[in-house]
């Protein structure tokens, strides 16, 4: 189509799915943020030109099918063990980019030991941590990040700190470890937040590409689980930006600079 001035209109494609994200229907529920986060990671890998140099690790959880969606070499992890797998890959292939994709039950409950020690060793890997305050795939059970008072299928009367303790803030906890190069908490609950999240994911991956061993990067992404929360996707996003962001503050908690090593 041409406009009145005779110029071609709409000839420039300004947005399409990133190459690394395969052209397949995602199995996630409507409004689930996994898809958005997959896109951000795929875009980052495309922009950094690392598609042929990356090995990803798929978690146990809704995102286990990562290998069906990303045009990357991907290893499937036992529940919580992704950082140990990533350690084994990164040490065997020191010049590859290695990332894990983990949920809150995976990373902050069963895999707490593996993430803490991989972080403390300063493994040069990027961890994308999806915090939606629940176990999504198994049907909405209580997670370590479940908010106080939040009802889940295993906290039917609401999480009570007297019996179940408190929601855990992983980004802050990991930022306190010497081996961590970058730690940030972001969300993808609005267009502006999506852009910030992408910046954070890019920084996380860039840490691996720097000349020297910077350490582990973790990007905690506050996300929705509309199905298990029993909310419409738009309301679920409001919850993320409201009570979740109040308890889990957004921001960068640590960012090592190259100069820190010089």
């Amino acid at each position, binding site marked *: 189509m041409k406009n009145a001035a005779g110029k071609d*209109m*709409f*000839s*420039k*494609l*300004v*947005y*399409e*799915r990133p190459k690394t*994200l395969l052209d397949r*229907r*995602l199995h*996630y*529920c*409507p*409004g*689930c*943020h*996994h*898809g*958005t986060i997959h*896109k951000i990671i795929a875009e980052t890998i495309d922009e950094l030109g690392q598609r042929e140099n990356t090995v990803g690790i798929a978690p146990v959880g809704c995102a286990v099918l990562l290998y069906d969606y990303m045009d990357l070499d991907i290893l499937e992890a036992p529940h919580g063990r992704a950082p140990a797998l990533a350690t084994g890959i990164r040490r065997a292939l020191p010049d590859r980019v290695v990332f894990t994709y983990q949920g809150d039950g995976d990373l902050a409950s069963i895999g707490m030991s593996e993430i803490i020690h991989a972080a403390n060793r300063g493994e040069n890997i990027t961890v994308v941590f999806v915090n939606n305050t629940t176990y999504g795939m198994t049907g909405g059970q209580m997670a370590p990040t479940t908010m106080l008072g939040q009802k889940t299928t295993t906290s039917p009367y609401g999480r009570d700190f007297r019996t179940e303790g408190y929601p855990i803030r992983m980004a802050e906890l990991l930022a306190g470890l010497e081996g961590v190069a970058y730690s940030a908490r972001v969300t993808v609950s*609005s*267009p502006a937040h*999506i*852009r910030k999240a992408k910046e954070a994911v890019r920084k996380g991956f860039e840490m691996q590409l720097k000349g020297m061993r910077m350490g582990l990067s973790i990007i905690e992404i506050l996300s929705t689980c*509309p199905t298990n929360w029993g909310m*419409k*996707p*738009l309301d679920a*996003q409001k919850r993320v930006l409201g009570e979740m962001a109040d308890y889990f503050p957004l921001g960068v908690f640590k960012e090592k600079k190259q100069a820190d090593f010089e």
Partner: protein
Amino acid sequence: MATGRIEIDFERCKACELCVPVCPRKCMEMGKTINRQGYMAAVFARPEDCVGCAICAETCPDACIRVWR
């Protein structure tokens, strides 16, 4: 006058509605036609107002939207 155009993959859309409120020009609406997944997919209701900002596409969790300028 439109300076952008989008294309929604009707069959992939899950009608999550996230693209509707984010459009600064209010071009998006939820449709009335059911796709093969069983969702009433979003529609590009006011193409004349589109500026091709791609915010809808960036927001779409299912990567259903392509944008041209």
